[in-house]
């Protein structure tokens, strides 16, 4: 089925897919997957797991296509929420300890191996601490500080109001600081 993808919204393409248009799925895949993958990778820090989350999120999109209500939500808004939820689940399954195979090897052009590993350790400690937060706090903090979204947009994604988002982020950050403060020397913060 031919269509001019550049003029079609995500919702239009999703409706076309629901009507059996494979090209619409291809356009959506090319348009949305980089963003979905980026969000998952920032939350997980692991390419293989981020790819699994991205695939899972897109599969959910295909399945919800027939019931999609374009008046209720934007596709990207819905995907932000789905990816944040899936990543939180993955982080919880990882547990408190970070699996060795979840830490990617530093690339050869890194400043130094030790520095890269320390940066990795800090990021993974933060991800693990994020997973320990109540789900909505983890969502709000990750959307604000990893996706750098504004509070009004986060409020739409989380189906709440801006004041609640502000409160979730403030409480989430306080909890993160409390969790990480016990690991200062381990993570090399005292050298900074």
């Amino acid at each position, binding site marked *: 089925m031919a269509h001019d993808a550049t003029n079609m919204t995500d919702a239009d393409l999703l409706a076309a897919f629901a009507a059996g248009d494979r090209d619409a799925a291809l356009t959506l895949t090319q348009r949305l997957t980089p963003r979905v993958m*980026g969000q998952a990778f920032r939350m997980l820090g692991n*390419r293989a797991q981020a*790819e699994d989350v991205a695939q899972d999120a897109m*599969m959910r999109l295909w399945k919800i296509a027939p019931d999609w209500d374009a008046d209720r939500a934007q596709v990207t808004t819905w995907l932000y929420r789905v990816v944040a939820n899936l990543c939180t689940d993955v982080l919880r399954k990882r547990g408190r300890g970070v699996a060795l195979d979840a830490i990617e090897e530093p690339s050869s052009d890194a400043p130094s191996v030790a520095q890269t590993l320390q940066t990795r350790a800090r990021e993974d400690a933060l991800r693990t601490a994020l997973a320990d937060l109540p789900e909505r706090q983890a969502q709000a903090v990750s959307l604000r500080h990893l996706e750098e979204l504004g509070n009004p947009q986060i409020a739409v994604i989380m189906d709440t109001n801006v004041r609640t988002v502000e409160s979730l982020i403030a409480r989430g950050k306080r909890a993160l600081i409390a969790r*990480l403060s016990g690991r200062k020397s381990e993570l090399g913060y005292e050298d900074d």
Partner: protein
Amino acid sequence: MTDEDKTLDATFAQMCVDDVMPSEALMDRIMVDADRVLAADIVAPVRPKQGLGAMLLDAIGGWPSLSGLAAATVAGVWIGVAPPDALSDLSAGYLGTTVEVSLLGDDIFSGLDG
């Protein structure tokens, strides 16, 4: 802003620059999923939106059923207000007597005589 806040924000900032492009293999996997959904006919044709009234109308069988229902309702009310003599005789035959029940009271129209 405390030192802890700064440290936390710095780590978040470092994580923000982490970005990867999806591999071709991932794009292929996602399209395989889309094909499977299409092939399995999980995706249904787009349904026109219906209001609550239209849904109720469909549930009882559409306009023909609704007109029949309206006619039966009117007939029922009329029989209740002015029952035919044959019906009174029939009920008297079954019950042995004629029973009249007034829901409004016997003298509701008495004040209208004068």
